[in-house]
């Protein structure tokens, strides 16, 4: 029983948040987060930021309950914030102080004594990959370096849980990969549980162990990453002509597909799907332009959901 309790990093029961003017941000959400890296996926307005605010004990839920690290958000907000690191999505760094000074100050604000704050600041900046640059003013940093400072300030208090809000915002592809690798390392080697909120499923799925998908303030799905993405992988097939015929033939042969503009999206069931498409295209004698695997964005995933419900 005890083991069962410690297995939960975040436990949310029937959580509802209504703002004035009948805006419902969270609607009876029940979900648990286990240790490891969890992606919190949802379109803008799905309730991700409201959930983070409630988890940090900053806004009270209208009804329901949320436990973080075994503490109730309604009564132990101070404790939770002392043991949780938060990285905001938006820019939050003053330009006219150095990385070291800034992170040291925020270490003190996390409750570290003066000397410990200085040591932890140096250490967390080193862990995120800022070395000599940390003595320079933040105003001169690149976007990637700024994101690292934001991560370092979340890490400085040695949290047991990290809440990262869209940590790859504003980064170029290389920067995104580096940031995600860094987060994966923190989650793996440092043994800190991490929640990454994102509106891009393809973005975070690579490093997540679990996914929690929200839609309109309610749970869309919560599962391990493998079961989550397997049904979401599709093949995009582009032919110069004969798209309807191809769709009809593929459906007849047992594949699940739907047209999406000039391409046909085919559910990827396994390696056999590639063969099936190849054979079907060949049998129909169609000019095949492109065949590629697609990672669906969450927005698409949500748009498809009612149809999936209907066909079930």
């Amino acid at each position, binding site marked *: 029983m005890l083991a069962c309790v410690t297995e939960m990093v975040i436990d949310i029961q029937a959580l509802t948040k209504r703002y004035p003017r009948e805006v419902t941000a969270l609607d009876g959400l029940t979900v648990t987060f286990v240790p490891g890296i969890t992606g919190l996926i949802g379109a803008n307005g799905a309730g991700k930021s409201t959930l983070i605010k409630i988890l940090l004990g900053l806004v009270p839920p209208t009804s329901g309950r949320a436990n973080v690290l075994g503490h109730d958000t309604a009564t132990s907000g101070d404790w939770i914030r002392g043991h949780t690191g938060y990285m905001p999505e938006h820019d939050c760094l003053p330009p006219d102080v150095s990385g070291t000074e800034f992170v040291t100050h925020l270490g003190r604000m996390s409750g*570290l004594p003066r000397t*410990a704050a200085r040591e932890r600041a140096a250490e967390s900046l080193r862990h995120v990959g800022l070395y000599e640059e940390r003595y320079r003013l933040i105003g001169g940093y690149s976007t990637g370096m700024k994101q690292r400072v934001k991560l370092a300030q979340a890490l400085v208090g040695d949290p047991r849980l990290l*809440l990262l809000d869209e940590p790859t915002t504003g980064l170029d592809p290389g920067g995104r990969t580096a940031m995600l690798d860094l987060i994966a390392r923190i989650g793996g080697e440092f043994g800190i549980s991490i929640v990454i909120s994102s509106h891009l499923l393809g973005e975070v799925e690579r490093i997540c162990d679990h996914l929690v998908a929200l839609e309109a303030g309610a749970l869309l799905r919560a599962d391990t990453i493998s079961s989550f993405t397997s049904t979401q992988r599709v093949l995009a097939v582009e032919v110069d002509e004969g798209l309807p015929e191809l769709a009809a033939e593929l459906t007849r042969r047992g594949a699940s597909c739907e047209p999406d503009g000039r391409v046909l999206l085919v559910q990827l069931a396994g390696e056999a799907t590639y063969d099936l498409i190849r054979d079907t295209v060949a049998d129909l004698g169609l000019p095949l332009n492109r065949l590629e695997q697609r990672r669906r964005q969450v927005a698409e995933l949500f748009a498809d959901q009612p149809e999936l419900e209907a066909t079930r």
Partner: protein
Amino acid sequence: MTTGVIHDLGYQHYDGPRLGRPAIVRALAWHSLRSAFGLGRGARAKIVPVLTFVVMCLPAVVNAVSTVHGGHRLFPYDTYVFRLRALVMIIFVAAQAPELVSRDLRSHVLPLYLSRPLRRLDYPLAKLVAFTAACLLMIEIPLLLLYLGTIVNAGGWSAIWAQTRALFPGLLIGALWAVLLAAIGLAIASCTGRRAYATGAIAIYFFLTWTLASILRGVAGGPSGPAGAPPGVPHVVPVAVPLAARLAGLISPPTVLEGVRQWLGGTSVSPVPPPGSVGVIYGVMLLALLAASLGWLAVRYLRAGLS
């Protein structure tokens, strides 16, 4: 530490002490007090605080030089700020209050404070304590210099005792100045993240209301002339000052403080006529200005969110 080799020890968890909320608020207040004087910032951040502090102290230094040459104390303690240095204090508040709050608004640092053990009102509380302390230092240190420069050449314990008794009301009025100026300055600065706007708004508020108070007083038949008339100019207060002139000072913080000083029994001459029977209204006005500033600060930071 003697070897030049850096070993990557991997991630180390922290198992030392964690301070509670009160200690964190104290740390934030200390950090803010330092930044009010530009400490821990670049050299440019120190120009205004250092210059204004020196100018605040100048009359006290002149007094010390004068007493060495056998003169008496040149300036009263309780009107030191109002008659000599109100302008300098307003410049200090206008320049440095934004340093404490507008800066954090501009760079959106607030979410980082909110996501830590601090509660919503801890942040404005720490800022208020820090800036009040900064204003106290700006005002009381010159008064103490004035006192020291005087008693060194006072000659005799009774003279020193007389100076000490005169000093205390001065320190009290100085404290009222510090509390009110800090609260108003932070309240206005918390409205905008743009330092220049905040500085302008604070300066305009103080100067505009002060000028207005002075004009109203003149129109109403009170003693005319700029409120900050140069020291040493004998000022003859008319025997009967019209009620309207006695109420005119209510619209401006410096003249409210001056009215309160006279209501509390301060006797030093002043361009602001003694409020007499309406003195208590000045006391109420002081509290109202303070309450409005603190109330706004509380509302402002209760409303703050993560984004």
